[in-house]
């Protein structure tokens, strides 16, 4: 998994909770990388899981909630890095429709080995977008957090419902977005 995800997770823990909690979790997890993450490196996905599990234990928050919050944090980071892209998309539907075709293509130019989740967007009506998330990582909640952050960013009256198509593994989930 790309190092950027790890550095951002640590940053989120520092910002939302505290520096001490972040370092304490890293120390407790005894991570093979020692937590010395760099955005341009690649690290074992299991390290991310270990950090999130430890964070949940320490804070008493639910794991899906934490992953969802991380999605929101990642959206803010993307927005800060690529404001022009988000301005150009103009709305959540367009953004999600361009994820696989445009956004992930750009990511692959920089990181050819990035293992990205697959997003299949289907406009079922002018006001209904069905987005299917597929990834063995099972981070559908992160996708949900990104979607919610996008809706908030564009100030859109969109409601989101989701259905897990992978028997609770959160690896294959359909999100239905309805624009009021």
């Amino acid at each position, binding site marked *: 998994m790309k190092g950027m995800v790890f550095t951002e997770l640590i940053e989120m823990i520092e910002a939302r909770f505290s520096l001490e909690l972040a370092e304490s979790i890293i120390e407790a997890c005894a991570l093979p990388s020692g937590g010395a993450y*760099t955005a341009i490196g690649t690290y074992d996905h299991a390290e991310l899981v270990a950090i999130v599990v430890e964070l949940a234990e320490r804070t008493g928050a639910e794991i899906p909630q934490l992953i969802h919050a991380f999605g929101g944090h990642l959206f803010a980071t993307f927005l800060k890095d690529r404001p022009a892209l988000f301005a150009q998309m103009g709305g959540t539907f367009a953004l999600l429709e361009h994820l696989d075709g445009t956004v992930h293509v750009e990511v692959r130019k920089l990181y050819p080995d990035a293992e990205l989740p697959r997003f299949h967007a289907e406009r079922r009506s002018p006001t209904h977008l069905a987005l299917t998330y597929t990834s063995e990582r099972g981070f559908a909640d992160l996708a949900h957090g990104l979607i919610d952050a996008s809706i908030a960013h564009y100030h859109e009256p969109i409601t989101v419902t989701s259905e897990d198509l992978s028997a609770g593994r959160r690896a294959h989930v359909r999100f239905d977005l309805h624009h009021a």
Partner: protein
Amino acid sequence: MDQIRALQLRIEREQRARRAAEKIAEEKTRELFQINQALRVLTEDLQRRVDERTEELRGARDVALAASAAKSDFVANLSHELRTPLNAIIGYGEMLREDLHALDLEDLAHDSARILSAGNFLLVLINDLLDLEKIEAGQLATHLEEVEVAPILWSVVEIIRPDLEANNNTLELAIDPLASELVTDPTRLRQILHNLLSNATKFTRDGKIRVEIGPEHQGLRRTMAFAIRDSGVGMTPEQLGRVFQRFVQAESTTAQRYGGTGLGLALTRSLCQLLGGDITAISRPGQGSTFRFWLPWEIAGQ
């Protein structure tokens, strides 16, 4: 964990991360350098191969050009060599025919007339071939002057009249009063009209041949358009597609049935283009053919 300890850990972690990032950057830089080197080698190799191929092709082209020039020289020389004895055959054949005629030896006169006819046919073929070779070699000079169209047409009609009558064809001429004069090469115009009219006569029996001449605009350019229509045998689309190629006749049996060499229309097109114009043909089997050619009204710049 107190804040100072946390900060210490964080600094250590950041330092390790920085070193890891530097190592990754260095590896990536080396990788890029190696890819760059490989690309350069590949580019140089490609360039070398392109150069080699270009040199080979240049050589092949030079050989082909030399062979073509040698062939043209050969054909031109041979044609000249053939014409000299052929002129003797035709000259003496004419004398012989007249002598035999005077002696009332009609059978023998008829035989000598056939020798004469074959000789004349060969002469036309050789002249056409020589003209085509000259056009291809860019050596056929044109002599441009103000030309009156009608007298040229009439002179051609006079030549083909015996054939027209032999095939029982009628001839209609429609010359626009505005199409009286143009600047072109009169010899070559006569040659074009003769080729097209004798073809029309040859491939039409008990029918009609119509010649139309009139001014025409091609874009901003003023041209003189000539149409030769016949009600003869016509051609299929396939035959039509090949009709201006050298040594191609509508059918391989055409030469046996109608005579001709298959050079006439190729030469006609080359002549039209040499004079700054072009030629097209439309035709349907059993419904006759129309050949239309056009020439510039005046020479550019005049």
